[in-house]
């Protein structure tokens, strides 16, 4: 384990602060921006998007519907309207291209809460973490899909889903929902590292499956430049996805991070002082680096 204070130092020194936080900043802009376009209507009367992440109508033309909640609805026996089906199709197609868990790292507001918990964990040096299985989220997913079939309360998961409680709460009024969000924060901080997003959240699990063959991926095409500083493992919310791509050269594994657990958050790209990682297609191939030009970035010697 490396010291929290050290993480990112090299990247900042090599690339500058802004480039070492580029995707983090872009993700926050994306997450807050999505909230903003839903809030501008109720707050300032400027209607861009109506509804919330479950289903929305943007500029009165673009319908978007969350396939996960719609699936739960259909399991309890409802047939959606055409607009909702179009909305589902657009969302499914989008995440199939960019990666399912892009929802988690670029859209979901809970990500800001759990990222904060993870950051605080590193800062405070909290190592203790209970041994949850990362597969528990698929069990949770199964559970949330079975409940509408057996319960009279229909879409049961939506009664407590922290993702929708937080987003809907911010846009429509949250009531005591902050307690739930605080619970997720404390759980991630004190009980299990990346406990919610990385182990339990069925929404993430659904989008994980949705994007299991997605086209946009993070890769380690310059993996031969890796100097084993381990910072990417320390910062990654799903660190198990890195190793096959980063260290798989001898086993002739692809440099692309193929695991659909990867949220495409791009923190590894930011944090790496050696420019090992980048976004690319599913079929990206390794860039061979000779010994002398390992420090070359984009053709410019530094």
């Amino acid at each position, binding site marked *: 384990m490396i010291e929290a204070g050290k993480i990112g130092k090299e990247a900042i020194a090599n690339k500058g602060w802004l480039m070492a936080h580029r995707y983090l900043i872009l993700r926050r802009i994306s997450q807050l921006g999505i909230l903003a376009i839903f809030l501008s209507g109720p707050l300032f009367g400027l209607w861009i998007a109506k509804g919330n992440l*479950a289903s929305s109508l943007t500029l009165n033309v673009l319908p978007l519907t969350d396939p996960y909640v719609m699936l739960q609805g259909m399991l309890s026996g409802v*047939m959606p309207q055409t607009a909702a089906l179009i909305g589902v199709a657009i969302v499914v197609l989008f995440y199939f291209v960019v990666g399912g868990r892009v929802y988690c790292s670029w859209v979901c507001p809970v990500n800001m809460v759990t990222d904060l918990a993870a950051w605080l964990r590193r800062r405070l040096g909290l190592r203790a973490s209970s041994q949850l299985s990362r597969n528990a989220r698929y069990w949770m997913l199964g559970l949330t899909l079975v409940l509408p079939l057996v319960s*009279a309360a229909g879409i049961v998961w939506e*009664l407590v889903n922290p993702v929708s409680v937080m987003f*809907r709460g911010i846009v429509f009024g949250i009531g005591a929902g902050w307690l739930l969000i605080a619970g997720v924060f404390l759980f991630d901080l004190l009980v299990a590292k990346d406990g919610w997003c990385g182990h339990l959240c069925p929404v993430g699990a659904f989008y994980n499956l949705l994007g299991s063959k997605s086209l946009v991926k993070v890769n380690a095409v310059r993996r031969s430049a890796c100097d084993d500083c381990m910072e990417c493992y320390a910062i990654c919310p799903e660190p198990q996805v890195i190793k096959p791509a980063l260290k798989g050269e001898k086993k002739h594994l692809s440099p692309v991070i193929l695991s659909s657990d990867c949220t495409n958050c791009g923190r590894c790209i930011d944090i790496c002082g050696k420019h090992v990682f980048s976004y690319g297609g599913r079929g990206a191939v390794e860039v061979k680096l000779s010994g002398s030009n390992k420090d070359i970035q984009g053709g410019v010697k530094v």
Partner: protein
Amino acid sequence: MSESEKKNELNRRQFLGNLLRTACGVGLVGMGLGLYAQRAASLPAQVIRPPGALPEEDFLGACIRCGLCVRDCPYDILSLGAIGEQVPTGTPYFIARTGPCEMCEDIPCIKACPTNALDHSLTDIEASRMGLAVVVDQESCIAFQGLRCEVCFNICPIRGRAISLDLQHNARSGKHALFIPVVHSEACTGCGLCERACILEEAAIKVFPTHLAKGELGKHYRLGWREKARKGEALVSPDAEHHYNLPEGVQYDLQGKGLILEGEAVEKPVTKSPLDTLNNSFLDKP
């Protein structure tokens, strides 16, 4: 057992142990969620769903909690339940006393619904049944005290049909009428305008979910006069003639003369003395 076999055995144990742990944990979560859902799904009486809402059990399976109905309500009466409130999280509702449904003719909330949780086949707002208004408190409703009010009757968008005024005798004053509001379930949509308009501190007319507001006659029960009217004749044939148990020489005509004494003399003219009238029946008797 060789080393590798031992290791495999350990791995298998570990694997099964982990699997069981996860399954049990998630099972517990499921049980908790199921029990919570059961409790959370019961609506308080003053919480009314938007027009066209499916029966509650179906509604909870169909509503994806997107809030598009809330946004498209021009009167902004709808809210979404939040955690800590007694309404299932994220589902739309209104409270009649503070913000009743204004019964838009084009029903924009239904049009906004992406899942048919608000039934798109409902196109006539007067056919919607959000609940049923009930005059819950005759003791405080001032119409029952003989005072003129009729605010609920006048505000009703289906005036005269959903709420009518029943004119009754005012026994207290002996000479005035009571203008009693009466709700008719075949026309009332449960919009709640009457409840908001009620002039009392606490409304005497309230909208309740229909299942709370309505009674139901036993299925076997028949009202004789209605059955008779429907058939056009008596159901028992021949129509039984009623026999009065009267002394000999006396008949009774219910809807005519009343008591008829056979052989009764022509009525005597009224005499001037009241005593004669009072003694009338005795004087003739032998």
